[in-house]
């Protein structure tokens, strides 16, 4: 449904997007993940035909966005980062205007507007001026605008930004419902959003694609080794050689914090469950086993791993933090 080939976009000397390629299948929800300034918005703006790429091409719904912009735009709904509302129009007037410029047949306008207002839950604000809406409503009116012409492809730039937690859940649910009929590309820097709504993820950093995969595979990729966190009261002795001696253990790393001394991350080969042996080894020494739990590397770790420069401390630091949460 969407095909991006070797896309590059430069602003003067700055390369915002550097030779990225990916495809999105019909009915799929693709998450576009990256830190701020990674090139998410730029890529989306190229996909929607807002700006032409410096190099490469993008095919949306079967049409090249540069050569056949009107055809591609007819089949694309776009919610920009800031919802493009006219403050002095009421929601209904705004959607009427949008339906005109998006080529919704005049006979269908009323019913389409009713349908999208219902779906995005803005019906109760239909006669309120857009400028007087709260951030959450603005975001949803923007989404309503993107859905008006029932496009094949929906491109949503941070669709849940500025919503309250309940609205976020509703919007995610709505996006999941939309998939199937529509192909959805959404950008976000919120990780749970990706694992909860998207089937596939494109991780982008500094204008380059660093990973394209399903959420499961990415999480699995992080878990090439399994790890156990233990906290031991070793009565002054150094427990490391003992832990290291347990069969299956590949590495033992101290993982202390001020209020939790005696913590260690014990890594083993995937599939080997070393918890029983570890516990036995510790207890037979007469040490106190204060805590023992498996730590799984989450999508967050993968993300940090892929988007930060490869200094081990940098990667390890936030990773252990999240493991303790």
């Amino acid at each position, binding site marked *: 449904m969407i095909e991006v080939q070797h896309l590059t976009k430069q602003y003067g000397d700055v390369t*915002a997007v550097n030779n990225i390629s990916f495809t999105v299948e019909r009915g799929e929800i693709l998450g576009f993940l990256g830190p701020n300034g990674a090139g998410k918005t730029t890529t989306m703006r190229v996909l929607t035909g807002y700006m*032409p790429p410096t190099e490469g091409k993008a095919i949306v719904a079967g049409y090249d966005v540069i050569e056949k912009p009107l055809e591609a*735009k007819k089949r*694309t709904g776009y919610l*920009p980062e800031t919802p*493009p509302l*006219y403050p002095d129009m009421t929601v209904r007037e705004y959607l009427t205007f*949008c339906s*005109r*410029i998006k080529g919704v047949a005049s006979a269908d306008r009323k019913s389409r507007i009713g349908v999208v207002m219902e779906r995005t839950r803005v019906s109760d604000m239909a006669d309120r001026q857009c400028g007087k809406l709260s951030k959450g409503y603005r975001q949803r009116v923007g989404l309503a605008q993107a859905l008006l012409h029932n496009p094949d492809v929906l491109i949503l730039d941070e669709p849940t930004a500025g919503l309250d937690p309940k609205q976020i859940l509703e919007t995610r649910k709505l996006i999941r419902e939309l998939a199937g009929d529509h192909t959805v590309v959404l950008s976000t820097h919120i990780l749970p959003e990706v694992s909860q709504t998207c089937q596939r993820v494109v991780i982008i950093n500094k204008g380059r694609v660093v990973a394209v995969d399903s959420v499961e595979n990415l999480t699995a990729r992080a878990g090439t080794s399994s790890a156990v966190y233990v906290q031991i009261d070793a009565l002054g002795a150094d427990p490391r050689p003992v832990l290291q001696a347990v069969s299956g253990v590949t590495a033992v790393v101290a993982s202390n914090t001020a209020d939790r001394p005696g913590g260690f991350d014990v890594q083993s080969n995937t599939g080997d469950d070393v918890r029983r042996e570890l516990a036995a080894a510790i207890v037979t020494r007469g040490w106190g086993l204060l805590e023992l739990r498996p730590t799984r590397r989450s999508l967050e770790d993968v993300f940090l791993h892929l988007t930060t420069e490869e200094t081990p401390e940098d990667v390890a630091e936030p990773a252990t933090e999240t493991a303790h949460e």
Partner: protein
Amino acid sequence: MSNMLAIARKELRSYFTSPIGVVMIGFFALIYGFFYAVMLQAFERQAMQFGQSQAPVDLNGDMIRPLFSNVLVVLLFTLPLITMRTYAEEKRSGTMELLLTSPLTDLQIVFGKFLGAMGLIAAMLAITLPHIGILFWYADPEWKPIVTTYLGFFLMAGCFVSIGLFISSVTRNQIIAGMATFAVFLLLWVIDWMGSFMGSTGMAVFNYLSITQHFEDFARGVLDTKHVVYYASVIVFGVFLTMRSVETERWRG
């Protein structure tokens, strides 16, 4: 076509839902009314004097033409206020992104905005019609110069609007757009003054460029295609520049 009209309707609507349209038309009516009253008084006095000396009076030449040239000056001041927001506002509020990602061509957007602004100008000029009607009721002015003057108004306003659209499209600040537009209009207005210091060629060139020189014939009731071509080409040029400017904006992002 329907896309273009949708934009034009939106523009026109935005003039009238915000106070802009009402304030403009209101103050235009006030100023016009003042000029009308003054010119009428002056003409009356003149007519009485001429009446004593048996010389003919010319309602068109002595009353309507000076009145219309004042209308033109008022238009010069108000048009930048109409066009300054057209693009600047859309760029600032982010709605440009909506227009540029909807299935619209750049030409449809520019022309829609052009028509919207012309619609407001038409509403302003409509204010002047009843007063002219009164003259027809009590006297017998020539109708031809009046019709050509209105045509001239529209062509000239069209030039200013298309230039104003262009200037608005290069900035996201309305004040800058307004001031720059006013400066350009004023220079185009008086550019023929420069001609008087030049040789005959220079004078011809500057006279040709002057937007007011071309208006003279319309005011006299002469419909010359030369002037229509001049105004039409300025309009086309302005629209062209606006389209290029929007396109450049897209490339730069």
